[in-house]
């Protein structure tokens, strides 16, 4: 007599699963990765691979020897994402051992401490990046200049990022109009022909990845759109008030890690709210905090801190903002 499977309904399932979603994100990161390799050359490639490898290694070691669990999750792609995103958030000239330390913090402290995939309250890659930024401020803010198809193993020429130029200039009391002459053109910023962290330079490459994720239904539009829109509106208001003191909104959209943050980091499903209403609030919160830090804070860039702060607010948002209930009062 044959035995039949018994389970509760439903008996069919959507084809998407966690593994496919995670690898989908990895595929979405490829355009940005290619652009960074094009502009920063071999060091960018080495750094990304090193970050991915060390993230995988740390996850493997922790699971095998600390958790002693028989099931390993390194193939689910989440550690690869963490590694890639961490690499995308550092300058290509970063010493190799620092990215390994960053990976250890990202995987060990930010992810596995809480029980692994799905349980971490903060985006692991961002925790790793902020750790590196605070521990090694000089290395983390020395930006190599772009040199397309550079095949040498080290970058030599360095320069500030566009946000850095503005911040420093404003502190010296110079006006925006003059400072804007020193920053790259918007076309360069859109394509990625600017200095900065590995993955954040090219807005177009990130958008391609974002559209891919939207089509594959890995992310929804809520967080990226509300994030980018709120930055645009907030900086727009400031710019209208005083265009001599505040940079224009388009500059804010293209400069720094905003695109990368809005498309890949803030949308991390584990650390963002579950319902769409809360996601919109989350996006706006990220946007407002980013501008606050950029304009009035000590750091020229505020994306990582903004997202981490909103990560901390996620459980609260989940609790307070409820989806509309059918037939509810």
């Amino acid at each position, binding site marked *: 007599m*044959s035995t*039949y*499977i*018994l*389970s*509760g*309904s*439903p*008996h*069919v*399932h*959507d084809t*998407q*699963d*966690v*593994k*496919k*979603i995670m690898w989908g994100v990895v595929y979405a990161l490829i355009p940005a990765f290619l652009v960074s390799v094009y502009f920063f050359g071999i060091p960018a490639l080495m750094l990304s691979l090193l970050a991915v490898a060390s993230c995988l290694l740390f996850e493997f070691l922790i699971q095998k020897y600390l958790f002693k669990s028989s099931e390993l999750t390194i193939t*689910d792609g989440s550690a690869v994402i963490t590694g890639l995103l961490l690499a995308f958030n550092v300058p290509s000239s970063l010493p190799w051992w620092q990215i390994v330390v960053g990976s250890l913090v990202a995987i060990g402290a930010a992810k596995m401490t809480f*029980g*692994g*995939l*799905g*349980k971490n309250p903060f985006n692991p890659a961002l925790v790793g990046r902020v750790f590196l930024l605070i521990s090694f401020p000089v290395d983390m803010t020395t930006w190599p200049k772009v040199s397309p198809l550079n095949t040498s193993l080290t970058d030599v020429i360095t320069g500030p990022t566009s946000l850095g130029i503005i911040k420093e200039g404003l502190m010296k009391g110079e006006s925006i109009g003059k400072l804007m002459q020193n920053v790259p053109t918007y076309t360069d910023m859109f394509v990625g022909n600017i200095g900065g962290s590995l993955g954040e330079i090219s807005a177009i490459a990130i958008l391609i990845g974002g559209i891919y994720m939207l089509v594959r239904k890995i992310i*929804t539009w809520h967080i990226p759109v509300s994030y980018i829109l709120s930055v645009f509106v907030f900086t727009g208001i400031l710019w209208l008030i005083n265009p001599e003191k505040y940079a224009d909104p388009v500059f804010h959209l293209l400069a720094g890690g905003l695109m990368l943050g809005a498309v890949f980091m803030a949308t991390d*499903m*584990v*650390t*963002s*709210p*579950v*319902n*769409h209403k809360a*996601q919109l609030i989350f996006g706006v919160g990220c946007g407002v905090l980013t501008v606050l830090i950029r304009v009035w804070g000590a750091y020229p860039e505020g994306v990582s801190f903004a997202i981490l702060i909103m990560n901390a607010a996620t459980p609260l948002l989940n609790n307070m903002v*409820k*989806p*509309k*209930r*059918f*037939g*509810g*009062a």
Partner: protein
Amino acid sequence: MNGLKTFPLGGVHPDDCKFTSQKSIVSIPIPERVYIPVSQSLGAPSVPIVNKGDKVKTGQLIAKGEAFISSNIHSSVTGEVEKIEDWIDTSGYKRKTIIIKTEPDVWEEGIDLSSEIKREITLSKEEIIQRIKDKGIVGLGGATFPTHVKVSIPQGKKAEYLIINGVECEPYLTSDHRLMLEKGEEILIGTQILMKAIDVDQAIIGIEANKPDAIEHLSKLAEKYKGIKVQGLKLKYPQGAEKQLIKALVNREVPSGKLPIEVGCVVQNVGTAFAVYEAVQKNKPLINRVVTLSGNNIEGGNFMVRIGTPIQKLIDFCGAKLENIDKIINGGPMMGKALVSTEVPVTKGTSGILLFSAEVSSRMKVYNCVRCGKCVSACPMGLEPIVLEKAAEVGNWDLAEKYHVLDCIECGSCHYTCPAGRPLLDMIRLGKNKVNQIIRSRVK
């Protein structure tokens, strides 16, 4: 065809897999034995009024529904009651079943077996309801709620719309679709009878867009019937759920914990409308129904089956092989029940029998919840399955109640969409069960 409508909140889009939609309904031969469980509808089990050794005719009353929510059961064959004992049924447990050994078919007197369509409705409102009750009509969409209870409008309430559910949003199933194509006229007369019973002058038949032929056919027929409108609906699961269908068709929201009559609607399945037609116009009790047999690698078809026929007979008749079959489902793949054996009989609620191999139907690997929120977006009731699952897992029934676990319609959209493969609906069902128990104990 006018613009397609749908419900706004949640929903998923499973592959509709309507492989058998072009297969006409075929009657299958009467088996040697039928197994008629006494609890075939929602509510209290019926009480058998025959004993071992009794001779029964086709259509004879064999079990009476005595409680308020309960229904009559009639013999689907002519023969001798062999025994009344516990037999496995769709619930997964053994329950009291009347087993009849069949003899050549002889119908009870007074049943009109001609295929002639009788259009004129002669019975009064009260007589119609009584007839529906006598003939054991229950909701044939799958929930098997006794129809006479549903059409008895409570004091102080007024129905405005009769909604006929021809959505059939469950993948694979095509029994309602075939019925609409082949018995369209009868369904419309049944609809008119139901309109008379609940005293409304408007009826809307909702049909999903993947059945264009049925929409066209019924629209054309409905021109002759006053007050009946056919409305096409966009493809989205669970459109056939009562509350979602009302929202889609008349844009009214049934309040949480209330019945559709609260917003002036009564919903009946097309199969029920057909059964009502037969009961009222032809005096025929509910003893057979259309069952779709389908699956992921079988031919399948739509069959007219006597209630109580073991599904093995249906599978044999269709010529399906059970070798590569790992899961047998009674009903649709989203809400149906998995069966343990092919001895289970077809009951009033069996809209389809699906045979699946493991690769389609086995549960996927379970990951940690990644808080993607897909379950929340998919829930047509606007609930948060992610919280409900956790609440049930740790046994926090108060939390489950606070998050409205009882509003869940068990459509399975959350589980269907969950990329981590978590058994969301399993745990929510458990939560519903426990919270219901707690609420009942509170009343005491």
